[in-house]
């Protein structure tokens, strides 16, 4: 339960972090709150030779209103995202979900950029950012670029991030009064991983569904959009939700593990998609 020995560097700026990543090569690993990385280092599932600590980059902790979207600094801790008034007012699903991650002591350390860069399909925030069609701002030696959530998550614990790139910011749309949202997480114990999670963002008009975006947690090697449900819900009436939700597992290949069989996960995805869309319609 003690990690393999490593060297430790403190990044003084994003540029410095990128320089350190270049200098130390692929065995170097960035650490922010460390609440995904330290446990897997303790289990010796990860053994980076160098840790580059981003946690002193206080200028990457912010939430800004940028007109159409909110910009959230990558180092913003989950607890601060959860309690942030701009997030609560304009993108409640992100604040709500940040409050579901671990427990308050975990949320005092973990960061939004960290949980996305970790790329765990069982994490809650990736599916939420996917359903919001959020974007990530990443910086490497050649400057900044933006990546859509759908391009960012590529495989189990594997993202579009190059070995010498750093996530700087997460951008999520400001949701208007006609947009309802819900994140439903099914787990057996409090603060457990989601066996299945469903994020729903629903645009409403005159009591009907204009369009819906559905993100699924733990239904494959990345967060997944339930595109068949999204198509079925486009222009649908609330009466059509149950039938549309029945295709939530279409095209998914969830894992069978200690927590649930693939078949049960598919069942859960259908049921919780219905519940999430229903809740979103009423919010």
């Amino acid at each position: 339960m003690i990690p393999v020995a490593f060297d430790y560097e403190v990044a003084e700026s994003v540029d410095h972090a990128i320089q350190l990543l270049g200098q130390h090569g692929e065995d170097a690993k960035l650490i922010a709150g460390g609440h995904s990385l330290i446990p897997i280092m303790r289990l010796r599932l990860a053994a980076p030779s160098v840790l580059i600590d981003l946690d002193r980059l206080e200028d990457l902790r912010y939430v800004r209103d940028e007109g159409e979207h909110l910009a959230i600094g990558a180092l913003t801790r989950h607890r601060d995202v959860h309690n942030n008034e701009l997030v609560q007012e304009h993108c409640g699903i992100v604040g709500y979900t940040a409050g579901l991650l671990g427990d308050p002591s975990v949320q005092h350390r973990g960061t939004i950029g960290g949980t996305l860069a970790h790329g765990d399909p069982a994490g809650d925030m990736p599916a939420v950012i996917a359903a919001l069609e959020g974007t990530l701002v990443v910086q490497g030696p050649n400057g900044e670029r933006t990546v859509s959530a759908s391009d960012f998550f590529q495989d189990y614990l594997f993202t579009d991030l190059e070995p010498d790139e750093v996530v700087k910011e997460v951008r999520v749309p400001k949701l208007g009064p006609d947009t309802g949202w819900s994140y439903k997480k099914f787990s057996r114990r409090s603060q457990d991983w989601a066996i299945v999670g469903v994020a729903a963002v629903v645009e409403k008009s005159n009591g009907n569904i204009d369009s819906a975006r559905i993100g699924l947690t733990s239904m494959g090697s990345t967060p997944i959009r339930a595109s068949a449900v999204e198509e079925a819900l486009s222009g649908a009436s609330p009466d059509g939700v149950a039938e549309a939700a029945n295709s939530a597992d279409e095209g998914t290949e969830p894992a069978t593990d200690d927590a649930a069989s693939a078949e049960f996960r598919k069942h859960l995805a259908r049921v919780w998609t219905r519940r999430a869309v229903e809740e979103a319609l009423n919010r």
Partner: protein
Amino acid sequence: MRRIQVRVNGTTYEHEVEPRLLLVHYLREVLNLTGTMVGCNTSNCGACTVLMGGESVKSCTVFAVQADGREITTVQGLAENGDWHPMQTAFHENHALQCGYCTPGMIMASISLLEEKPDPSEEEIREALEGNYCRCTGERRGDPGGPRRQLLPLHGLREHNQGCSAGRRTVQLEREAWE
């Protein structure tokens, strides 16, 4: 090795540490502050909870080097001039412990909660302590039968949920006492 300077319970310490040394081991084995417990080692159980910059953190999942320049408070830094912190007194008076192993973490998490929310609801107290496990009394796994059921009245609540009901009840009482 890396030199760190950490202020723990009001005293500034400087040490050369290995980067892989965890904060909980630094507190217990280097500073000999053994009031902070080691439990699950995986950031679940909360026995190792301390305050870092005034906020609760699980010291088994923070490297000591990450605490460089920071202010740490452990359960042993709460009393002032021999007088217990009000939360310690409240836990004592309500007998909000049984074996006592989880208690330091419960107290630190409870103090952190009241710092953030001076007047928490019952639900907020439950949520705030969900990351602190009590093996004596605390978890609802169906109906607690046998000896565990006999213990319930001792802690004042028949209905149990995750976290320590005794701790929760105490935070509520404490909150009322502070109003």
